[in-house]
């Protein structure tokens, strides 16, 4: 397994991304990953806060129209995330924090889908206040995204492959 990861990590493409000074290499891939994070978490947080009663005039039916933008951000990050993992495959995959981040993202996406069925698909969307189940989902979503950002940011500071090690 380790040989396989090492093989990926030392492939021509991965070495180029890791070591080139080009703006399309490491710095650019990480930039896209950060912008994507802002888009995904930003839109998700708006939906969550609206469900919790912030900005009450904002119609949830309108917020749903931002879902495609959120998913563009998500796939941007899935794509750049795979590259960022591949170029440091041996160290990132040995870092427990990496799996914590993936779990948070997985939970956040499941929660997002549940918000879709329970809030956007509810027959009384924008006519009745969100249910307490919807509010619970919104709180969970905020917690999971905050967890994803925190564990993602800390990948640079803790465990194998971080600045300290």
């Amino acid at each position: 397994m380790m040989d396989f990861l090492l093989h990926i990590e030392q492939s021509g493409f991965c070495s180029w991304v890791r070591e080139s000074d080009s703006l399309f290499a490491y710095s650019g891939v990480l930039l896209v990953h950060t912008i994507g994070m802002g888009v995904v978490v930003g839109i998700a947080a708006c939906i969550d806060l609206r469900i919790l009663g912030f900005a009450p005039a904002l119609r949830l039916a309108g917020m749903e129209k931002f879902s495609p933008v959120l998913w563009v951000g998500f796939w941007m990050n899935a794509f750049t995330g795979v590259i960022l993992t591949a170029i440091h495959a041996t160290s990132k995959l040995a870092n427990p924090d990496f799996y914590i981040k993936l779990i948070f993202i997985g939970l956040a996406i499941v929660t997002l889908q549940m918000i879709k069925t329970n809030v956007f698909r509810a027959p009384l969307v924008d006519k009745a206040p969100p249910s307490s189940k919807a509010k619970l989902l919104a709180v969970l979503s905020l917690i999971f995204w905050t967890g994803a950002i925190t564990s993602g940011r800390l990948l640079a500071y803790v465990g194998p492959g971080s600045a300290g090690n």
Partner: protein
Amino acid sequence: MNAAHIHLLLNHFPTIGFAVGLGLFVVGLFGRSDELKKASLVIFFLTAAMTIATYVSGSDAHEALKDTPGVSAAMISAHEGAALVAFIFMQVTGFFSWIALWLLRRVSRLYNWNLAVVLVLSVVTFVLMARASTIGGEIRHPEIQSSAEAAASGADPAPTIASSWRLYVQSNSYVWPTCETVHFIGLSMLFAVVMTVDLRMLGIGKNFLSFAALYQLLPLGMLGFALNLITGIMFFVATPQQYVGGLFFLKMILVVAGAFNVLYFMLLDEPWTVGERDDAPITAKFVAASAIVIWVGVLFCGHMLPFLGNSF
């Protein structure tokens, strides 16, 4: 023109801007002129934004001056400490001024309380800023130093709030990663507003969202910005030598541009004509598109500091 020149160009805005704003504010309060009050709130907010650029240009000026004969390290350190205290108060004043401007569009009893807070903060800020400016002026003007100050200028730098924070960050390894994490959370909050408000102006979800509804979201973006200003200045004060040069300064210029940009949505009546199903006017679309460019630009400059700049 060099870095020290930029600091000299910018360093009159904070004190003079606040003197003008405070004068108008007091006249507006006594004369019960809502227009004057509003004008002074705008001046406080924009002066606070420009002061961000002023404050960070001080590090460049320090780099440019540090080996100059006759320039006292103790004086520069004292100026840095005084400027940081004044800067903090000014940003808090700018924040509350923005909140007051935001409340103007809403029926709220909070507005008058907020004005009282702004009045107290602006007086304190003006005094602190005048103090910081005076110490800053003395760095290159020995003729305005008192004899006690002249004697102190040869001594070792005394500890200040800035130097104490630097020491704290150096000896506590948790601080930097924590601030980085909060910086990214603030970024997401700011992007939440940039993405929804500005993309709606450009047409996404327009059948369901009026501008009046989107306006309620703006404080979320301001709160995100505030988190990032707090954590950003924590980075800056801890390691000012990292944040010299054009890329970081461009980031600060873009932040100032972002402050002007948001005022379009706060002060002008034009965006308020945008109801559900309405296409936004062309000016609103232009301002919305430029907001996206500005804030992605801020992110770009910050992100590229380790790669294109001289940080880390």
